[in-house]
């Protein structure tokens, strides 16, 4: 009996213990944290006005780094294979060693890829960046990628290096689209990162469905059927009648609304605000989902979303930039619409952008020359950039080259021989990223999550909105509403 008593009490202690271990992570070194709070308060006051776009100070001169010795390991942090394949396919002298390592000359390239869902990538990156000072040279992050949704979080911090510190002169970057530099310009006027792509979005339509329902798959005719949201909804009804869904999920159209807002998600005093145009997305989507014109309320990237990549999915259109078509729509899978060249592109009801990847140099890198060279090759070198367009159907960040290609006889295989670059080039010029905040990824994700219940009929709009506010303030305790 005594033994059992002992065993039971031990079991009880262990369960209680394991609970606390699971619940309360011990915060490491509070003293250090306190210090960093003090040191960062000055930066957070300067970045408190996300709506005001800082001007790039073009007088900053490039630092001469030719004397610096290169480290042996180049650590790259990113969230998917896209950048890796760009480097593998287009960077001269890059050799693949295995799935997570490569070689440039005698420098080993170490890939650290964490998916971006639920901010996993950022959390991993942040933890490593904070330890950057104490890390060995070969362990330090040298290069990392950021997306438009959270670029601002890194721009105004000392964790990113100005590109001029890498020996890149700003005049070298003059062919890039201006918005790609505006995003990465810190409040004191330095440029903190560069991008090889431009991400203007278009409406990508299923040619088969267009022929069947609209009688033509010509971009101009399709555009007439989706030229504004009212026409778009009318077309959706026709699609429904012929057994097609307008979009695969309610979230497909989200970016076209969220990019055309008049206020950013988070105001200067860190208040969360829902723009009228985002409310319009909710209303339109609810109406169309209830009418059976939208297939599912599930998230993008989910299974229901993927079904439309194939003819059996019966989905009329997707909204996306160049990378979506090439990278996500199953172009290399036999039988997919992209593989058969069955998509077409047209402007759609409203212009928008989605994503975009910027290359940043991490402070403390010991491979400045290599990082600078990667930036130059992928974002400045015209020949390489044109190759990227031809090989990967991407839209690159080089205005003269893109306009040249738009006018050329370049055709895109996934678009069934159409040249969509003119559309993209026109869109890229109009992109303004002045309504973004550092919290956009969380806001976008939580808003879509909360609204799913409304679309599914599980709650009314106000309840769903409360849920969004609650979720976003739990996710980012610094915000209020």
């Amino acid at each position, binding site marked *: 009996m005594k033994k059992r008593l002992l065993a039971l009490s031990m079991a009880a202690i262990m369960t209680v213990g394991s609970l606390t271990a699971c*619940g309360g992570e011990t915060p490491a070194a509070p003293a250090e*944290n306190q210090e960093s*709070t003090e040191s960062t308060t000055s930066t957070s006051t300067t970045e408190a006005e996300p709506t005001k776009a800082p001007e790039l100070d073009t007088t900053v001169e490039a630092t001469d780094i030719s004397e610096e010795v290169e480290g042996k390991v180049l650590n790259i942090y990113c969230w998917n294979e896209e950048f890796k394949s760009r480097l593998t396919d287009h960077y001269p002298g890059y050799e693949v060693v295995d799935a997570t390592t490569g070689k440039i000359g005698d420098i080993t390239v170490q890939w650290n890829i964490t998916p971006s869902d639920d901010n996993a990538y950022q959390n991993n990156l942040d933890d490593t960046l904070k330890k950057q000072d104490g890390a060995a040279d070969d362990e330090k992050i040298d290069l990392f990628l950021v997306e438009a949704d959270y670029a601002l979080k890194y721009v105004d911090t000392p*964790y990113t290096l100005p590109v001029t510190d890498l020996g890149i002169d700003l005049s070298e970057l003059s062919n890039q689209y201006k918005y790609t530099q505006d995003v990465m310009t810190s409040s004191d006027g330095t440029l903190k990162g560069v991008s090889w792509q431009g991400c203007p979005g278009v409406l990508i339509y299923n040619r088969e469905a267009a022929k069947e329902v609209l009688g033509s798959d010509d971009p101009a005719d399709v555009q007439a059927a989706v030229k504004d949201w009212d026409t778009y909804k009318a077309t959706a009804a026709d699609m429904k009648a012929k057994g097609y869904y307008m979009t695969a999920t309610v979230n497909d159209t989200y970016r076209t609304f969220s990019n055309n807002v008049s206020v950013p998600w988070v105001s200067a005093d860190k208040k969360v605000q829902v723009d009228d145009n985002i409310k319009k997305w909710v209303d339109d989507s609810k109406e169309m989902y209830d009418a059976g014109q939208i297939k599912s309320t599930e998230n993008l990237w989910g299974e229901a979303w993927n079904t439309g990549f194939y003819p059996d999915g019966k989905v009329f259109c997707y909204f996306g930039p160049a990378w979506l078509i090439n990278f996500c729509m199953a172009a290399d899978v036999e039988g997919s619409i992209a593989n058969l060249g069955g998509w077409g592109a047209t402007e759609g009801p409203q212009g928008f952008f989605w994503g975009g990847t910027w290359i940043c140099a991490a402070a403390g890198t010991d491979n400045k020359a290599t990082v600078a060279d990667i930036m130059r090759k992928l974002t400045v070198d015209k020949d390489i950039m044109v190759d990227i367009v031809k090989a990967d159907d991407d839209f690159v960040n080089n205005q003269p080259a893109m306009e040249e290609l738009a006018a050329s006889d370049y055709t895109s295989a996934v678009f069934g021989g159409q040249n969509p670059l003119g559309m993209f080039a026109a869109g890229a010029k109009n992109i303004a990223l002045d309504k973004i905040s550092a919290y956009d990824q969380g806001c976008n994700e939580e808003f879509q999550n909360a609204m799913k219940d409304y679309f599914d009929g599980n709650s009314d709009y106000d309840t769903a909105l409360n849920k969004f506010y609650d979720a976003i303030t739990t996710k980012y305790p610094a915000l209020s509403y």
Partner: protein
Amino acid sequence: MKKKSKSVVSYNKWGYIFLIPFVVVFIVFQLIPLISTVYYSFFTYYEDGLDVIGPKPNGINNYIALFSAKKEGEMNFMIGLKNTMIMWILGFIPQIILSLLFAAWFSDPSLRLKGQRFFKTVIYLPNLIMASAFSMLFFTLFSTVGPVNDILKSLGIIKESYDFMAHTGSVRGLVAFMNCLMWFGNTTILLLAGMMGIDPALFEAAEVDGATARQVFWRITMPILKPILIYVVITSLIGGLQMFDVPQILTNTKGSPNNTATTLIMFLNRHLYSKNYGMGGALSVILFFITAILSLVVFKFSGNSDKYGKK
């Protein structure tokens, strides 16, 4: 006399020496985190982007925020507790019934079940699968374009795909079903051990006196099994309070629909998203006390049976 006491002391010494590894591990990995969790639960302490805010003391505001009755649609501790308990009860009732039934069958000598070893292994198997993998499997099986919907549609039971993840009942039901499936084997083994420990003479005596199988079960097996049964209930309850991986993955971290499948630990996990040690700590402390009380209940009941001496 002197000699004897000396030898006792030296044995004690070895006892303490052997305890050192446990005590050190316990202090470093359990006691210190426990104390700092309680400590930080009285602070505002989180991260904002790459900045760390706090720690600055804020009294019991974290606790108030956890319990404050908010607007409809918002999440608080009581909603989390309610969800957790509903899903636990939904899963535990079938689990304990199944376990009692199996344990009774396995331990009944008159049934002479063949292949007992095989079945004992098989019912325990689901427990060996990682909960997250199990949950992922169900997520795929029950998705709108998954095989379950396909089968139901081809059998003509439903016309349109049924979105299992968009309805409170089906989500909670699936979570409960998975928990039941994963844990009934474990419970069966525990109860079986308890039943095997009962003196066969009691069953024989009952048989001689003409008791039916039902009477034997309710009048002999169950009362003697009571301490084990309480242990099973309470440990399952403590495990249930910590329910996390199954609903987290099944609902893709969202606890949807409408937070009706958000358990306490999922709620805790959300607070830890921005490393909010203040709110996370407060929630952990409350959970700690609930669990401690439940553990004391186990302790008390198992202690009671001692009073009557050995059976």
